[in-house]
């Protein structure tokens, strides 16, 4: 299969995936009420924390964030969490491996990981788009610091890197289905790790310095924390090069790991029935 034909088939997968999303418009749109649910729970708790920190110590900034900046951070981080691949993709891959549909993919002249990668991407983009629209609407009512056009443009490549890292993490853990059945708990663990170590609930700067330095070494921060901070414009330009290099290094490491695990898993895999 030529490269052009291969690219065309991946684009076709993306198109089909987009059409499937539209079939469930109501279901899809109701997902957006998810943002307020998450943001309000954290809003109330953080507002108490900031109010008491101000009353007790006269402090208005915690972990480098004022209250408004923090709410802004949480909003974007939640949009990222909803947009990037997580639980649902992992379930799909597990079902494909465990119940047999993988066999039909393997028979096609298309890479299974590529198929899933391009199949998931339109969904991620739409969630990001709707999330950002919700965010812009919120900016009309709540005076949060809006991102600049420059930061928005800078955010795009980091979103792509975040998508790839999240995809590889989910894919790597889902491959466990070759060896085990019922791997929901592996997905749960990954999801918790991504949220906590990725800054999905608390900005990483809130943690004590020792924990912070460990968390900053892991790939999870490139999923949520880094793109969010970049969109908010909290990085110096000089920080961007090391961040880019380390995130690309993680991409390569995870890609190699996924390929190794995939080849290991496929060894001895066979589908039965029809």
């Amino acid at each position, binding site marked *: 299969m030529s490269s052009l034909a291969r690219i065309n088939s991946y684009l076709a997968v993306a198109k089909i995936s987009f059409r499937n999303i539209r079939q*469930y418009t*109501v279901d899809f749109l109701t*997902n957006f009420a998810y943002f307020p649910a998450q943001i309000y729970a954290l809003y*109330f708790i953080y507002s108490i*924390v900031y109010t008491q920190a101000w009353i007790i110590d006269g402090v208005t900034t915690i972990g480098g964030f004022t209250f408004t900046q923090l709410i802004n951070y949480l909003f974007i981080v939640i949009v990222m969490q909803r947009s990037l691949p997580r639980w649902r993709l992992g379930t799909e891959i597990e079902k494909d491996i465990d119940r047999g549909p993988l066999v039909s993919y393997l028979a096609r002249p298309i890479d299974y990981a590529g198929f899933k990668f391009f199949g998931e991407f339109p969904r991620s983009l739409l969630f990001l788009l709707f999330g950002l629209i919700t965010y812009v609407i919120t900016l009309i009512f709540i005076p949060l610091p809006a991102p600049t056009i420059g930061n928005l443009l800078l955010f795009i490549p980091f979103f792509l890197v975040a998508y790839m890292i999240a995809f590889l993490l989910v894919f790597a853990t889902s491959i466990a289905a070759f060896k085990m059945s019922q791997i929901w*708990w*592996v997905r749960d*663990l990954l999801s918790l790790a991504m949220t906590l170590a990725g800054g999905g609930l608390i900005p990483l700067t809130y943690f004590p310095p020792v924990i912070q330095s460990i968390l900053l070494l892991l790939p999870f921060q490139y999923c949520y924390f880094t793109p969010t901070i970049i969109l908010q414009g909290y990085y110096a330009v000089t920080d961007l090069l090391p961040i880019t290099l380390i995130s690309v290094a993680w991409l390569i490491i995870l890609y190699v790991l996924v390929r190794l695990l995939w080849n290991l898993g496929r060894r001895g895999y066979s589908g039965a029935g029809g």
Partner: protein
Amino acid sequence: MARNDYLRQLGLIPSYLRLSLLRLGENKLQLWGAFATSAFSFIFYAIFWNVMTLQVPILTGVGWVVWGVGELTFLVGMTNLAWSFGAFFWMGIWEIHWYITELGIEEYQIRPVNSILQIMAQNFWAGGIIQMSVGIIMLGLSIATFGLVITPIGIVLGLLALLLGQAALYILWATLASLAFWIGRNAGLIEISDAIEWNFARMPIDVMPHLVQHFLTFILPVIFISTVPTMMMLGQLPLEPTLLYLTVAGVLVFVWILIFNAVWQAGVKRYQPVGG
């Protein structure tokens, strides 16, 4: 349905539980998985509250309890315990809309056992026992570490509030899921209310504004998942609000059973099986 019929059907529950235990025994790795996720989830939120209380030592609001790191850690353990009950008994509720839209409910309707009971029983998950034991260990650890005091009467009242509140919440979800008879697949609708529960259950709701508290008590009774049981077990809730909360939880269960029954019956009348 005659009273004897109800009793006979409820008598099937232990058999379904036995089946679930047998299924679980086939995959022991899942037991460890359940243990690991429960423990990690507890550690996750314990870290969250520890980081929060590094900034301010206590959270106070409009409620009765002063939430320090001990009370907050206990609250997280209570959430684990509550969700273990949910995982054990109520998992099938999440599947109702799936059965209505894709799997079909006709095979359940022709059997002489209540359809909802069958769907729930098929999804009983004995792994909840593991989560339950993790929850209990976590509660014990937070008591031992932070010197909290719990009373036997507090435990009984707290568990009662938890079970009633959880029943109300799940029957509400079953009602939402049953709307699939009219609007098709509606995972999003359930996901919204689940998101509210998931995000608020691990927070001390009594420190939040009154409007939020009322919403999470009367509309979506998340307050009974962890906040109220924690306050009751730690003996920090006066008698009057204790009785009031228990009454509210009981009334909510009753009301939601009535609503669910009406929605389900109407839905079944309009249901058209598909496929063959």
